[in-house]
Structure formats: structure tokens, C-alpha cells
């Protein structure tokens, strides 16, 4: 038991995580490609045309996974940030920093695809729908996190300040979501619900699931690449970095 604990903490040091991440990245890219091909196949060739929305509904296959990932990545980021704050491990802060841009990208994608879906379905690029509004606020939270980290010069201080912000954000996200939802039902009698609009056929669920897995693997691969860069940037004056380069 004790042995395994030590074993795990060994990988928590940037020095041993750097080569490990390098070895893992190709596998995650392979998984991204595999899930992506399968997901796209289902989204375009297996899933039937929707009775109400025609072919336009196919946007759902990236819109919903992007929304899921943007929320999930915020949780993961806050988890790493909190871990870094509690255990004072160097790697945790780097992981949180590496995840933020990918999370922001997912939120932006979700907004973009939401707008492109909204135009033909609702006749407007932007609707103050509860989901879209919370997604916008989530994007702001990501941008705030990144801006705060960029504004603080000392990386250790930046990590800790970012961690507190991420944790505050995690407490607030459900409150923001429910308040926006309440506000939405109060102001618009009939809302069109994005995910429930087309009848959820089994194949569509599979398509979304596969695309979500693809996005998940993609996020891991990119975050690992970025965390490797961050490790080298921050540890550039240590001995091991000089030996690790080939």
C-alpha cells in the first residue's frame, strides 16, 4: 500500500511527468482519431434525418459534446487547482493552467455552434436561452482565469491565485446556471430546449457519446502537450531539464 502511494507521488513531480506525458500523447491522439471517425460516421451517415429540423440538427453532434467538455474541463481544472492549493504540488498548478485554454475553446465552440443552430431553428443568431447564457458566462470565467494567471508574474503566486478563482467559480457555476434558468423561464414563456428538441433516437445518443469521447481524448492530448511546454518553461534552470532534452 505504502509502496503504491510513493509510486503515484513520483509521477506528481514535473521531472517524471514530462517524459510520461510525452509517451502518452500519441496514444491519446490515436484514441481521438478513432472515436472521431466513428462519431463522424454515425453523425453523417447512420443517424437519420430529423423530422422537424431536417439535416440542420446534425450540429448537435458537436454542439452538445463541446458544451459537456467545457463544463467538465472546468471541474477538472478546479480539481487540479484545489489539489495544488491543498498539497502544494508543483504539477497541479501547471495542469490547471494547461487545461484553461482548451476549456475556453470548448466553450467558444459551443457558443459558435449554438448560434449556427439557433439561426435556422429560431430565426436568430443569439437567443437568451438558459444554456447559451450560462455557456457565455462559463467562457467569461475561463477568460478571467487565464487573464489573472497571465497578469501575475510569479508562477507560484499565479497558480495559487488562479486556484482560488477556480474554486470560487466551481461554487458559483451551479448558482449561475440555476439563476439563469429561473430568469429564462420567467421571461420567456416557451423555451426551445436544445438537447430535447429532436426526439433522442438511440443512434443519435451514440453519435454524441462517441463525439464526446473524441473531444475528451483531444482535450487530454492537447493539455498534455501544453503542460510539457509549461514544465520546461518553469523548470528551465533545473539540472534535469538540461538532461531531458534530446
Amino acid at each position, binding site marked *: 500500500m505504502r509502496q503504491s502511494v510513493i509510486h503515484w507521488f513520483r509521477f506528481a513531480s514535473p521531472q517524471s511527468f514530462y517524459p510520461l506525458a510525452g509517451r502518452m500523447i500519441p496514444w491519446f491522439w490515436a484514441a481521438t482519431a478513432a472515436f472521431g471517425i466513428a462519431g463522424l460516421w454515425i453523425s*453523417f*451517415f447512420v443517424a*437519420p*434525418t430529423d423530422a422537424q429540423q*431536417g*439535416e*440542420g440538427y*446534425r*450540429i448537435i453532434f*458537436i*454542439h452538445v459534446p*463541446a458544451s459537456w467538455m467545457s463544463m467538465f474541463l472546468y471541474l477538472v481544472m478546479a480539481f487540479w487547482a484545489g489539489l495544488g492549493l491543498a498539497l502544494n504540488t508543483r504539477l497541479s498548478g501547471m495542469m490547471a493552467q494547461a487545461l484553461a*485554454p*482548451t476549456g475556453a*475553446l470548448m466553450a*467558444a*465552440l459551443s457558443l*459558435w*455552434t449554438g448560434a*449556427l*443552430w439557433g*439561426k*435556422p431553428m429560431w430565426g436568430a443568431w443569439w437567443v437568451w436561452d438558459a444554456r447559451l447564457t450560462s455557456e457565455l458566462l462559463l467562457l467569461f470565467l475561463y477568460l478571467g482565469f487565464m487573464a489573472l494567471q497571465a497578469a501575475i508574474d510569479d508562477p507560484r503566486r499565479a497558480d495559487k491565485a488562479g486556484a482560488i478563482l477556480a474554486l470560487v467559480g466551481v461554487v458559483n457555476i451551479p448558482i449561475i446556471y440555476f439563476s439563469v434558468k429561473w430568469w429564462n423561464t420567467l421571461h420567456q414563456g416557451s423555451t426551445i430546449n436544445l438537447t430535447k428538441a429532436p426526439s433522442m433516437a438511440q443512434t443519435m445518443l451514440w453519435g454524441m457519446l462517441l463525439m464526446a469521447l473524441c473531444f475528451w481524448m*483531444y482535450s487530454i*492530448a*492537447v493539455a498534455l*502537450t*501544453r503542460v*510539457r*511546454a509549461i514544465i*520546461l*518553461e518553469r523548470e*528551465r534552470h533545473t539540472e534535469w*531539464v*538540461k538532461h531531458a*532534452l534530446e
Partner: protein
Amino acid sequence: MHWNSVAEFFAMGGYALYVWGSFGACALLMIAEPLLARRRLSEVRRSLIRERLADELELQQKSQ
């Protein structure tokens, strides 16, 4: 398989702008982001290798 021709596939039942706008932006961003991340990594690597070379040259000059 419910597409009768390639053109029909690309037309997306009249929703081409919206569907391909979404998938296109998605593809674009998801290609650009890893490239940027990888460039960041290779830039750090290059500057570190340059630094190591500078260290070696400095040592050589001192020993001469």
C-alpha cells in the same frame, strides 16, 4: 446510407451554411490549437538547446 449523391451530402438539405459552418469551425480550431501548443513546446525546447550550446561554448572558450 441516405445520401444519394455527393452534392446532396454537401447541401445538407439546405442547411449547408450552418452545418458546415459548425463542423468547419470545429475542425479549424481543433487543428490550430494543437499546432499552437506544439509550437510553444518546440520554442521552449529550442531556446533551452540554444542555452546549452551557449554554456558549452563558454566552457570551451574558458579552457582555451
